[in-house]
């Protein structure tokens, strides 16, 4: 196994809400290899965004982190602010769900791109302008020079997401974390953006972490998927395997809750109940109360992740049994 680009080990996040401490992440283990594309799937509050915001130290002062985030041999958890700032953008770039509000409304696109270029590549003046135009052109924005003079509100959501991607590319990072990059966009625009991300990955060999609530988006664009539930990764498997042989009941539930676009219509099999609140998690396995395969032992302890097959991990007490 090659050295992973980033290795997250037993990462925990606790939020201090003022009244109580709420644990949002319960020990996440996740390693991304150089150039790999990993999908992170889960429902709202499952911790998929928090994992990466925590890794980059972007959660603010109310979050307390535990565990390790190893990047190039250093542990980013608890490291100095300056050290984190040197990693952000430069080594690991991040783009977000709502592109239009992720850009500063008072500056022109060119200035915001220039800021990234100055920061990471020490460029300024006409050189920065030319490079900014080249980046915009790279992400498929026509008439790039003119667009540099536009403000974010003058561009569509899809265009703004392209600008965000261009900005992420400014430092030529080793990895891009895309947090629901297309959720706020229309279907045909989503397709454009995902295509662009694929193309950039082909050209640069950059690793990609794609966070999404949509299994389909992740399936088409990544090699491996981690399914998160209530602050834990419950299954981690190659894309093909997760659809063919899902090992965790939650993953199976998600798959059968999705309708198909073609073929015979069948009644959806809904997962009963609701996603538990992070401050009110059930005992043992967090999914136990909604699980079709529930048994008494599920309540004993949160199940450890076991390797079901080569490169296929699942955190379910029944998952291991299949191969034992």
């Amino acid at each position, binding site marked *: 196994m090659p050295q992973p680009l980033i290795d997250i080990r037993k990462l925990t996040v606790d939020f201090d809400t003022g009244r109580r401490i709420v644990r949002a992440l319960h020990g996440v283990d996740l390693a991304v290899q150089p150039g790999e594309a990993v999908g992170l799937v889960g*429902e709202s509050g499952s911790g998929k965004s928090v994992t990466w915001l925590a890794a980059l130290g972007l959660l603010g002062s109310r979050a307390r982190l535990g565990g390790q985030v190893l990047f190039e041999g250093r542990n980013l958890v608890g490291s100095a602010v300056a050290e984190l700032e040197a990693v952000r953008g430069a080594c690991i770039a991040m783009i977000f769900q709502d592109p239009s509000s992720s850009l500063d409304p008072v500056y022109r696109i060119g200035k915001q791109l220039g800021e990234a270029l100055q920061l990471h590549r020490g460029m300024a003046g006409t050189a920065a302008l030319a490079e900014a135009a080249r980046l915009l052109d790279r992400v498929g924005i026509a008439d790039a020079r003119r667009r540099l003079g536009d403000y974010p509100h003058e561009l569509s959501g899809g265009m703004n997401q392209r600008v965000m991607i261009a900005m992420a590319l400014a430092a030529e990072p080793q990895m891009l974390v895309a947090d629901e990059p297309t959720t706020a966009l229309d279907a045909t*625009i989503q397709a454009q953006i995902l295509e662009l991300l694929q193309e950039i990955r082909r050209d640069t060999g950059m690793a990609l972490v794609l966070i999404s609530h949509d*299994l389909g988006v992740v*399936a*088409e664009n990544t090699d491996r998927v981690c399914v998160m539930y209530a602050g834990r990764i419950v299954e981690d498997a190659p*894309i093909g395997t997760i659809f063919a042989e899902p090992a965790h009941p939650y993953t199976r539930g998600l798959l059968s*809750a999705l309708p198909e676009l073609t073929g015979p219509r069948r009644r959806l099999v809904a997962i009963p109940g609701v*996603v538990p609140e992070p401050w009110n998690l059930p005992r043992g396995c967090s999914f136990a109360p909604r699980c079709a395969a529930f048994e008494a032992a599920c309540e004993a302890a949160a199940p450890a992740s076991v390797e079901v097959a080569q490169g296929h991990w699942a955190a379910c007490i029944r998952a291991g049994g299949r191969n034992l």
Partner: protein
Amino acid sequence: MNAPLDAPLVQAENLVRHYRVRRGGRLFGEHATLRAVDGVSFALQAGRTLGLVGESGCGKTTTARLVLGLLTLTAGTIRVDGEILPGAGTARWRSLRQVMQMVFQDPLAALDRRVAVGRQVMEPLAIHGIANAGERRERALAILHSVGLQAHHFDRYPHELSGGQRQRVVLARALILSPRLLVCDEPISALDVSIQAQVVNLLLDLQAERGLAYLFISHDLRMVRQVSHEVAVMYLGRIVEQGDPDLLFAAPAHPYTQALVSAIPVATERGRKRLILKGDPPNPVSVPPGCAFHTRCPMAVARCRAETPALRLLDDGRRVACHLAPGMADA
């Protein structure tokens, strides 16, 4: 009221809704016309579901609001049970509104945070002066039960419920007047994936039990197919393709529908060839002449720029507004 038995519950003919706007900003610039809905027709039978799909700004929500009489028509007619929908605010409209209810995307915004959900479910009965207090409570409890909530939910407040439960409350409130049409505007988009299936199944069960008709608006083609008997694809205020969802999504005839279908990420078919459209949809203030889609259409020819295609019937029963759709060439 003497409509024939097979008359549709809702018949929309050539609905048009235009807005006067100022071009280029809030203060200056000349007036222009925003064509939110520009000639939409459909018929919806009792007990059936019409799915409306399209991207933001295509006019699907405006269409829904027109059907309910919440917006006035610039042109066209809506008939409910054969009767032309009277103007909003009139007594007749109010009584027809009992027949037609709406469910929105965000259940939290649709509910009053300070009022227990049971009271909110009973409220439409009070507004229309139906039943006495005791009976209203009985009915509310019964309807809460039928949307999968329990009696103890009656006294809860919206913030004490999950997203899915709130949407059930909204449904219960819409259903308590025993409507015949439910207009659902993105009813599951705000819900988590595992909850969406619960609500979709509930909608289907309610339709089977009560013979409800749904006007179901969503951007999620898979969910639309799951619930719809017929589907209409909208682009810039017009229907571009309409018909049986199984047919339409399996073999879309209009290039726009093809692009929409192709844009859906499919887990099982990696590396398939995609039809990816260029650019953003045009602003509905400046709808391109001819076929409005020609600016993004990979197949557009000269005729598309000049001549607006009408919706025409294909052999398999669907309607398509495209000069180049199969079976259209000699039309």
